[in-house]
């Protein structure tokens, strides 16, 4: 082989090598022993004298017995025994908030930094633009042995994966701590369902996150279109919704009654509305191939077959919102957190119209409703008992009544405390954004009445790929019109259960 032939060959080999290096491949951070071991006791011991009294707890008697403090603390007594006095603990909080949301969190954090009697300092770090970014960053830190924050936002299924790795801690001892915890009165002020949603059947008795925000799957309704169809109020049953959606649809005019926007939560809402579940209550298996699941998928299939629904391309963000604001969609199943964005879009539309949000329709008007409720929580990661306590105290401060209300108004999420809900409702009703849409503001007020019907999709580790499976199944059967709903769901559930086993805590 002469030189002229060797040169391109070497170049080709180099390019091929770089191709491999450039292809998406696993994070190759330098490895250290990852912190995967089960919680172990530390040498930290309680101070000999009782800690100082705070605004949240009565003074402890002096000469309290020494308590060994595990990391993480396992009992309320261990939490009580942690002394933060003079420690000036600094904690990091990884989030994905931006714009007005991050401003509000920063404001509350600064307030906490100034007022807390222990010198705790909370530092905010934007770990990404999405929940997935934060999730991947935490996972990369666990893998690379890098520094983890004391506090992070996380969906319940993400927290479950962290818990499997031993990096998210159970908050129960902190909540029950006499010195640092919540009073019964405080606890009763939280919407019970929100507190329940951070419990996980894979880790019985543990609380893996603290609810700072929640949303609900609702039906956005174009009231002008609805009235033009002869209906006076939003549909209460799925049958009514299907009929109205098809009446409204006119594909030649790019007008549709319903929408598929590649969101597994929309499918979950339909499964719940039909009385089913995605996951068995004991988390032993996925069950969305039940008759309720088949009916949910069949409804989508019928809507597409009859030209009543439109699918939004995956590349198009807020495509359903834009079409709704343009008067091209009668119903949109979506999160309640989108309410102000819909209001802004319709305010800016060429022809604004009357609209509202309604409870997601159910299979039967007589049965007890079942509604998809979701939202990321804040989870405390295993650091030191002092930092863990500092993170808890910040969350406690963040979810005090006034902060909860302020956060709900800024973030567009629902207030997690009952006492804060009314403040948020009044704010929305008086907001200039909703001045033209009293029906929508009224819809927001009703959200809080529907919390009691909440249902959770799946809090177990490995739910993210299951969501993708669900989306692919709806795409294939409904949007593409290929295959039978029952068979497709059986195949999807089989794969989902393999994932459930694969991700199960060992």
């Amino acid at each position, binding site marked *: 082989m002469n030189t*002229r*032939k060797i040169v*391109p*060959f070497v*170049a*080709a*080999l180099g*390019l*091929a*090598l*770089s*191709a*491999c*290096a*450039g*292809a*998406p*491949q*696993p*994070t*190759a951070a330098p*490895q250290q022993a*990852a912190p*995967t071991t089960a919680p172990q006791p530390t040498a930290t011991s309680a101070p000999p004298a009782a800690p100082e009294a705070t605004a949240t707890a009565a003074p402890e008697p002096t000469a309290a017995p020494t308590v060994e403090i595990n990391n993480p603390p396992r009992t309320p007594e261990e939490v009580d025994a942690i002394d933060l006095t003079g420690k000036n603990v600094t904690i990091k909080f990884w989030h994905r908030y931006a714009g007005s949301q991050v401003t509000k969190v920063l404001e509350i954090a600064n307030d906490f930094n100034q007022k807390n009697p222990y010198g705790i300092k909370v530092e905010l770090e934007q770990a990404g633009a999405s929940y*997935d970014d934060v999730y*991947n960053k935490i*996972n990369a830190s*666990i*893998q690379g042995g890098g520094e983890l924050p004391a506090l992070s936002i996380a969906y319940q299924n993400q927290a479950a*994966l962290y818990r499997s*790795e031993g990096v998210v801690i159970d908050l129960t001892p902190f909540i029950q701590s006499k010195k640092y915890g919540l009073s019964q009165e405080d606890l009763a002020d939280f919407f019970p369902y929100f507190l329940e949603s951070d419990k996980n059947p894979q880790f019985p008795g543990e609380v893996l996150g603290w609810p700072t925000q929640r949303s609900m799957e609702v039906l956005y309704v174009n009231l002008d279109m609805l009235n033009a169809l002869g209906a006076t109020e939003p549909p209460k049953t799925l049958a009514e919704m299907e009929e109205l959606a098809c009446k409204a649809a006119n*594909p030649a005019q*790019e007008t*549709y009654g319903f929408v598929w926007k590649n969101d597994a939560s929309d499918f979950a809402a339909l499964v719940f509305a039909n009385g089913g579940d995605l996951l068995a209550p004991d988390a032993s298996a996925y069950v969305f191939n039940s008759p309720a699941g088949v009916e949910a998928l069949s409804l989508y299939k019928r809507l597409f077959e009859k030209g009543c629904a*439109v*699918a939004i*391309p*995956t*590349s*198009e963000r807020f*495509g359903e919102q834009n*079409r709704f604001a343009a008067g091209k969609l009668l119903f949109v199943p979506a999160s309640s957190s989108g309410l102000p964005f819909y209001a802004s879009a319709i305010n800016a539309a060429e022809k604004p119209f009357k609209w509202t949000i309604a409870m997601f329709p159910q299979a039967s008007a007589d049965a007890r409703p079942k509604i998809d409720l979701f939202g990321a929580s804040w989870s405390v990661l295993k650091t030191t008992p002092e930092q863990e306590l500092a993170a808890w105290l910040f969350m406690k401060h963040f979810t005090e009544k006034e902060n909860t209300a302020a956060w709900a108004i800024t973030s567009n999420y629902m207030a997690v405390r009952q006492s804060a809900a009314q403040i948020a409702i009044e704010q929305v009703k008086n907001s200039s954004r909703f001045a033209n849409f009293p029906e929508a503001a009224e819809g927001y007020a009703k959200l809080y009445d529907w919390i009691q019907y909440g249902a959770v999709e799946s809090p177990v580790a*490995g739910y*993210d*790929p299951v969501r*993708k499976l669900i989306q*692919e199944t709806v*795409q*294939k059967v409904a*949007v*593409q019109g*290929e295959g039978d709903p029952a068979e497709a769901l059986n195949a999807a559930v089989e794969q989902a259960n393999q*994932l459930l086993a694969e*991700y199960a805590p*060992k």
Partner: protein
Amino acid sequence: MTVIASGRGGAARSRMRTSTKREALLAYTLLSPALLLFLAFTVFPLAFGLVISLYNWRIVPREFLGLGNYARALAPNSEMWSALSTTVVYSLLSVPVQLSLALMLAYLLFQKIRGKGFFRVAMFLPYVTSTVASAAVWARLYSPDIGIINQALKSFGLQPLKWLMENKGIFTLLAEQFNVTLPAGVTGPSLALVAVIIYTTWVFVGYDMTIFLAGLGNIPGELYEAARIDGASGWSLFRNITLPLLSPTTFFLSLITIIGTFKAFNHIWVMTQGDYGTTTASILIYRQMYEFQRAGYASALAFLLFTVILIVTILQNRFAGQRVVY
């Protein structure tokens, strides 16, 4: 005498050895920053990726599997085969179309025509535009209900298409127009994949054209003059002078274009996220890594993709390289 001569020779050799050692030391010193970077950011990640591929690795290593991940990827029912076949189809359709079009444009813009500077810049612009931005714009153009392309089709009385949301093969879609049902093996690539290929061509044809223009500029004009004197013209000149003397450029472009199509990720992710028959090997690797958190399996897939690219490159070098005229 001999002793003296030997002593002189030994001293000279010793000086030479010292000088050579110094040169080598200097060379390695100068080379060391780049070498260290290469070791840290290329060799180490590759070696570490190889180690990961031997484990069941979700966030942390769980179980040593040996070649288990590779066996899983190579199993007959593995999703890798489907992803690889999509990648090959993507490459087979993209590369010839891109290169032919680029050569045609380059040949055209190499002539003395008015405004060729403008057209050269205009053709190159898509390549320097942000891939994510342009892919998002194209995805909007392809939108089934509000996209401009379907609006245009409808204005001509044609049936709108689902474009990026169409899983059906293009031959199936054509056959449906004549109420013919095609068997599963001959459905063709999905319309979504074809739509992505159209975008890819739009982006890269300008770059290929620019490289071809450079190649055309290197062909000595005397060869054309001599050939014209001998009576050659038009196609004959192109066939016997331009094409052979452009072969190093064509070879280089085909090499990097094929490798590029096998690595393609960004625009496919933006346009379809791998849905509707567009899951290429890179998309599969990404999804296994970030959606399924299967680092070991994703690494094994990445090394298999590397092997495929290496084999294709070697074959290309062996067969196409022999036809290159330097």
